[in-house]
């Protein structure tokens, strides 16, 4: 069964090579079917462990590690597979109509070929059970997603963003390769199977702390770049807005979560639990969420705002993950498991609401052709369904009860706030949550309610585009009111990497003993019932009158463009932006120096002898590094 999505997606990619108009529809439909199968595999994966093994190179000593291609779905992969399936189903269905806009303007084969391959590589990353094969699929994933970012060939910005994205993730992947080679050579004697590594590595690394920290360093950079952890985030705000909106939804919704998946595998099941490592991850998480959200507040481009907020949410995932490792290492099972569950719950939530928000931004682009928040306005009357979906997404991402965003944020605060070591992280997270609210009030009102600069011609998007949005909005609501279904899956997923989730659910509430409690059902029921009673007792009936314009007959020339939002707040917190600008200048300087070296290197490379000697030196350094780190 694991092979079915692979087969369908390969067929889709082959069909996608044809230039005919119909191939767009066929590819999208096939991808949607493959996604549905992934959802099914995800559900089955929670009940039984699925496994497939292939012996590729018979008795070849050279490829001994690559010899076995093992696919395996345990509960953790099943959880991420479910997210991938749901999100790619929505994105594929959405793409049928959305991509038609590009017909005739761009070469749609770039999309129809790369899109299924991109889905396929993400699927393979999630199901493979061998570190070396993982690296191969991981690199392919970066490669094909890069082509999708560069889809609009006529836009120079898109090409540049894709190139930047590729360079940065490639550099990050080198660190991963280094880490994987180290693990395979030094620790596990040419064994790359996940189960074997989980058996051997923790004991080995406990005995070799130098190696542990070297590996942690390499993995944090390698996965940090892909997850857009600050300070390795700068590719994301450029790359995600340039891709077609349904691809942005996938990039933000699920692709940047795959590093989270691997980090969980590495730091929980492959590595011994160290409190210091947990704190380092949590500190990076806090830096990530703080700076990215403060910058999201400044954005005037709808998809760029969403991209910055994606980085912010990676922070909200890294923070409880680090805190969870810290608590587990210190023997606090209760808070540790709650924090890790919060990380997984937020991963799910972010996949849903950010996917949803990118789709709404795409719908607005589809109708109006622009992402400029200054120009857009008053679309709520013209696009009521999209406006409703965007409102739900904005409320959920701001963490408003009783939607799903609140459940994960609540778990984050409950696990971090009351312990002195992590309390400050939780405090900053609460503040940034309020800033998120501000940023998404801006996103929603600037597009849908503020008076437009001039009349915009738009209508509601076709059903094939609004249905995926409404499905995701529904998931945000349902999992907010009834979080017990995802929590059950999460406790299984955590169980499969050896973290038992303490009984958090006390029906009808979520209760962390002596620390906190939240009952989504009661809160929702009370909100609903009392609103209905209020509507009955004080019915809102009235007449329509013209908007009050201080008594003048013509329009007031007072308007608030998107760049005027929260100006005083930005001025008061100017230090944050100054710090950000200084570090940006520093990074640019480093990049410039790198470029100069690159040019010199290119000139040098024409000379064969010097190239060879350089390669020799590099090999020597590599050997010294590989041999030396373990000492």
């Amino acid at each position, binding site marked *: 069964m694991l092979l079915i999505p692979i087969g369908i997606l390969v067929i889709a990619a082959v069909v996608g090579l044809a230039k005919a108009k119909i191939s767009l529809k066929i590819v999208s439909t096939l991808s949607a079917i493959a996604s549905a199968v992934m959802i099914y595999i995800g559900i089955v994966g929670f009940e039984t462990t699925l496994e497939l093994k292939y012996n590729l190179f018979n008795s070849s000593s050279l490829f001994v590690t690559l010899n076995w291609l093992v696919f395996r779905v345990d509960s953790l992969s099943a959880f991420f597979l479910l997210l991938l399936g749901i999100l790619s189903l929505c994105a594929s269905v959405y793409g049928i109509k959305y991509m038609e806009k590009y017909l005739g303007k761009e070469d749609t084969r770039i999309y129809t070929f790369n899109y299924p391959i991109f889905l396929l590589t993400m699927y393979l990353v999630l199901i493979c059970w061998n570190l070396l094969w993982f690296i191969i699929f991981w690199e392919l994933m970066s490669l094909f997603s890069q082509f999708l970012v560069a889809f609009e060939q006529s836009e120079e910005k898109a090409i540049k963003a894709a190139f930047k994205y590729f360079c940065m993730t490639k550099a990050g992947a080198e660190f991963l390769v280094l880490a994987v080679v180290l693990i395979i050579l030094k620790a596990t004697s040419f064994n790359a199977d996940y189960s074997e590594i989980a058996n051997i590595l923790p004991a080995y690394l406990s005995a070799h702390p130098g190696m542990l920290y070297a590996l942690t360093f390499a993995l944090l950079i390698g996965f940090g770049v892909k997850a857009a952890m600050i300070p390795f985030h700068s590719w994301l705000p450029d790359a995600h807005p340039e891709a077609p909106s349904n691809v942005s939804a996938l990039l933000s919704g699920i692709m940047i979560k795959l590093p989270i998946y691997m980090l969980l595998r590495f730091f929980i099941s492959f590595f011994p639990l160290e409190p210091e490592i947990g704190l380092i991850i949590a500190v990076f998480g806090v830096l990530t969420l703080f700076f990215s959200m403060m910058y999201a507040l400044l954005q005037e481009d709808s998809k760029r705002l969403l991209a910055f907020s994606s980085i912010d949410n990676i922070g909200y995932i890294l923070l409880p993950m680090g805190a969870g490792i810290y608590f587990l290492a210190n023997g606090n099972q209760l808070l540790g498991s709650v924090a890790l569950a919060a990380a997984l719950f937020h991963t799910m939530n972010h996949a849903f609401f950010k996917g949803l928000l990118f789709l709404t931004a795409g719908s607005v682009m589809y109708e109006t052709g622009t992402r400029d928040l200054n120009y857009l306005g008053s679309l709520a009357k013209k696009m009521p369904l999209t406006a409703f979906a965007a409102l739900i997404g904005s409320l959920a991402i701001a963490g*408003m009860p009783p939607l799903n965003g609140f459940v994960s944020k609540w778990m984050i605060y409950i696990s971090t706030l009351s312990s002195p070591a992590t*309390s400050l992280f939780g405090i900053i997270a609460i503040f940034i949550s309020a800033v998120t609210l501000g940023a998404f009030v801006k996103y929603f009102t600037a597009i849908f309610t503020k008076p437009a600069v001039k009349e915009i011609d738009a209508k509601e998007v076709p059903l094939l585009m609004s249905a995926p949005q409404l499905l995701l909005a529904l998931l945000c609501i349902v999992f907010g009111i009834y979080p017990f279904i995802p929590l059950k899956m999460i406790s299984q997923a955590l169980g499969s990497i050896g973290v038992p989730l303490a009984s958090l659910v006390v029906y009808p509430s979520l209760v962390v003993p002596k620390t906190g409690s939240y009952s989504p059902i009661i809160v929702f029921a009370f909100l609903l019932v009392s*609103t209905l009673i209020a509507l009955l007792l004080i019915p809102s009936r009235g007449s329509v*009158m013209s908007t009050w314009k201080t008594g003048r007959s013509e329009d007031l020339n007072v308007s608030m463009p998107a760049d005027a939002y929260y100006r005083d707040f930005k001025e008061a917190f100017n230090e944050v932006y100054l710090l950000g600008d200084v570090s940006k200048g520093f990074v640019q300087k480093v990049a410039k120096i790198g470029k100069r070296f690159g040019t010199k290197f290119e000139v040098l490379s024409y000379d064969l002898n010097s190239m060879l000697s350089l390669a020799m030196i590099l090999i020597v350094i590599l050997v010294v590094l590989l041999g030396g780190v373990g000492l």
Partner: protein
Amino acid sequence: MSTIFIAINLAFALLIAPVIDSFERKIRARLQNRQGPSILQTWWDLIKLFKRPTVEPQDSVKSLYKLAPYVTFTAVLTAYLIVPTLLPSSINFIGDFIVVVYLLGLATLSFVIGAFSSGNSYAQIGSNREVSLFMSEELLLAFIVGTIAVIGKSLSFDQLFPLPLRVSSALALILLFLVIYVASARLPFDIAEAEPEIIEGPLIEYSGKHLGLLEYSIFLKRLLLYSLLLNFIIPVQNPTRLIGYLIGIVVLSVIYSTFEAYYGRFRIDQAVKLMKKLSAVALVVWIIAVVGW
């Protein structure tokens, strides 16, 4: 039994919140050498508003504009399930400190969204200020929540009421006292609604029943915050809790309305900067709490 307690608490809040407002109006009037209205005046005002029809502006997004006041009202009301007022409550599985903070956030958010949907430019300016103030106020509040959580090693109210007698708890409660003043939209900080400059801001288009509901929810929010502060101080088990609570409400009203009577309005940038400075103080208080004083 506890459900009845909660029902009594809710009824108490619904009845008394407007009375407290008229009481504060009376105090302000006396301080300014005026006679002042009767103790039931705010109730008469509200009843008058509830009798009036409502008006919908032409440029508004009708559904959001109409629904927002109701959601604002019920979000504040829901918080009363968690924070006990007149009678101590033994139900603690509905929510904790975080849930209360976020329910108040929901009230602010729906208020702002409703104002933005009215299509009036003044409402936009006002809501924009409201959100700016909310964000900076939340920074201070986050530090207070964190400090209290560190002191009580919990976020659940049954562990936090009352706070243990420590230097840090006293300092944290003083800061909470200040943030309550800011959050209850009173004179130096009613920047969003400033009548003389932006004509009631977010409230500009609201009339009749909608306006009544929004004002009612402000009164409810004030009483909720008073109760929150008092619960941190008054011992739960004590039979004199009820008397202490009522006296506490009166004392807080007097102090707050005295402040209000003597101050002029801040500019929004002054208010945001003040919040930032207070947050720095709160950071120090948090450190004191972590150290264990």
